[in-house]
């Protein structure tokens, strides 16, 4: 089941994996001609559209492979790192890079390949990128407000447009094929301006490949992405031991401690029926139904939580709590826990400290002092592995 966790096999294997992937990357860039600034810059003078063709074929191929394997249950997309969206910094940084691209002739990755094949301009450009990164680090304090603004943790095009993932994949495929067609016709026009213009694509292999890409995209759309329950069938085994060893069941006192910890962003989801919720609920809790836990928009919000975000499920029915936990876990919600025994233990637990006069719906931290230190075992461990995976930040 992918993605594999190479880091679990030790540092040398992990590093060897990264080296091998880099080796493949460098080889392909060199084979495509991206070690040569003339070839890259030609893109912007419309005579040679290699950059656009290769980039979008790469994106499309990887995109189809990712969502095809996810669609048939072989890849857990919720574990795949998705670059955070910082809309305006990304836009401004992109414009600056575009200018740097035309003036300097490379981007960071291609300058490495250029330097590797002894191109002096590539070596100088690469040194320039190191200096530029330094300039950024020295000055970022002056614009860190803007740099950290317009942020969404995991915003997909599908979320943005309100489309399904499958429909978005089809959209991206059609966009890429349109670009390829335009690239072919542009090259044809600029290379042989005097020849009679034809709308046809002569190369049959191109037409056939485009057909295959579109068919795969439509297949992904039709097949849909697996439901949380189907994903649990495929992926559940790796999480089952957490449930069996009760490592995700949080004692009420640990809940109180977490709640009073200002460093933690706590989200409490109460699954009990409305009547019970209205009679008594934790001050921080929001009521949700089991169906809501599969709702795309609802889970989207949970996936935006920062690394120090913790989600705790509350219900008096443990079987329901486990089903809810499974449902959210396979949708990528990290730091997910269950309040042990729901609220059944709540009132009796605090009965002997009632003299402190506090609101049972929000016990303050001082209540904890009335209990022995070993009254419970700590279960909440903040895991941030998925979010920490970005290579560029």
């Amino acid at each position, binding site marked *: 089941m992918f993605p594999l966790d190479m880091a679990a096999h030790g540092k040398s294997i992990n590093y060897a994996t990264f080296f091998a*992937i880099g080796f*493949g990357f460098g080889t392909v860039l*060199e084979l495509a001609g991206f070690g040569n600034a003339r070839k890259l810059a030609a893109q912007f*003078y419309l005579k040679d559209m290699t950059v656009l063709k290769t980039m979008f074929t790469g994106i499309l191929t990887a995109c189809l492979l990712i969502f095809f394997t996810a669609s048939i249950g072989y890849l857990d997309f919720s574990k795949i790192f998705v670059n955070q969206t910082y809309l305006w910094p990304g836009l401004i940084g*992109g414009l600056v*890079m575009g200018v*740097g691209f035309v003036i300097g002739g490379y981007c960071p990755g291609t300058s490495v390949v250029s330097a*590797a094949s002894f191109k002096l301009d590539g070596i100088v450009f690469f040194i320039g990128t190191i*200096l530029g990164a330094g300039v950024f680090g020295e000055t970022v304090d002056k614009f860190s407000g803007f740099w950290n603004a317009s942020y969404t943790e995991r915003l997909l095009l599908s979320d943005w447009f309100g489309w399904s993932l499958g429909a978005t994949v089809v959209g991206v495929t059609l966009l890429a094929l349109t670009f390829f067609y335009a690239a072919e016709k542009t090259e044809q026009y600029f290379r042989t301006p005097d020849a009679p213009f034809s709308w046809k694509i002569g190369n049959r292999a191109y037409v056939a490949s485009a057909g295959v890409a579109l068919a795969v995209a439509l297949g992904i759309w039709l097949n849909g992405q697996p439901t949380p329950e189907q994903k649990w069938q495929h992926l559940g085994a790796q999480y089952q031991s957490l449930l069996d060893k009760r490592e995700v069941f949080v004692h009420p006192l640990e809940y109180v401690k977490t709640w009073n910890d200002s460093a933690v962003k706590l989200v409490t989801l109460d699954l009990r029926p409305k009547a019970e919720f209205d009679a008594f609920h934790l001050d921080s809790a929001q009521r949700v139904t089991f169906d809501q836990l599969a709702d795309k928009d609802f889970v989207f919000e949970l996936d935006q939580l920062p690394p120090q975000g913790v989600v705790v499920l509350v219900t008096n029915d443990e079987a329901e709590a486990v089903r809810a936990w499974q449902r959210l876990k396979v949708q990528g919600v990290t730091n997910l826990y269950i309040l042990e025994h729901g609220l059944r233990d709540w009132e009796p637990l605090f009965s002997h400290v009632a003299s402190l006069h506090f609101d049972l719906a929000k016990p303050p931290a001082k209540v904890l002092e009335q209990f022995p230190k070993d009254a419970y075992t700590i279960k909440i461990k903040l895991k941030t592995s998925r979010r920490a995976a970005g290579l*560029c930040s």
Partner: protein
Amino acid sequence: MQSKPYINPYLAGALLGVVLFSAFALTHSGLGASGAISRIQVAATASVAQSHVDRVGYFAAVGGGDRHALDHSSVMMLIGTFAGGLVSAWRNRRLKVEVCKGPQISNTTRLALALVGGVLMGFGARFARGCTSGQALSGGAVLSAGSWVFMFAVFGGAYLVAWFVRKLWN
């Protein structure tokens, strides 16, 4: 001996896509180069002035105290990229000391502009939190909205100034 021609751009793209998919399947994340470049910069600074690295928050995060900026998987990927480029250029007889430039400018002009472009790229890549590989390719494939905006911004920025600097390349 004549160097071999570059391969078909779509074939190269398909191979690139397979490499990119492998990166996701084996490491959770995609390809990248600029993160490692930033680490090289921090390591270089640390070798002459560790105290400066410790003081600047952005540098300290990767190379402060007893952290070694270069001890990171992204640096391994960058070394791999270099090695792959080297071997491929060697096998295809493209290893040659030269300056890639347009016919109208001198080597000195080209190298100076490569440096300027590199600085802009290095700065921009930190600003955008990723380069063409880490943002556009990797984020593009997993449909990150921000990465798509970034990608069009790169092409937009390049096309905006391309006409004004056409003498550099044509």
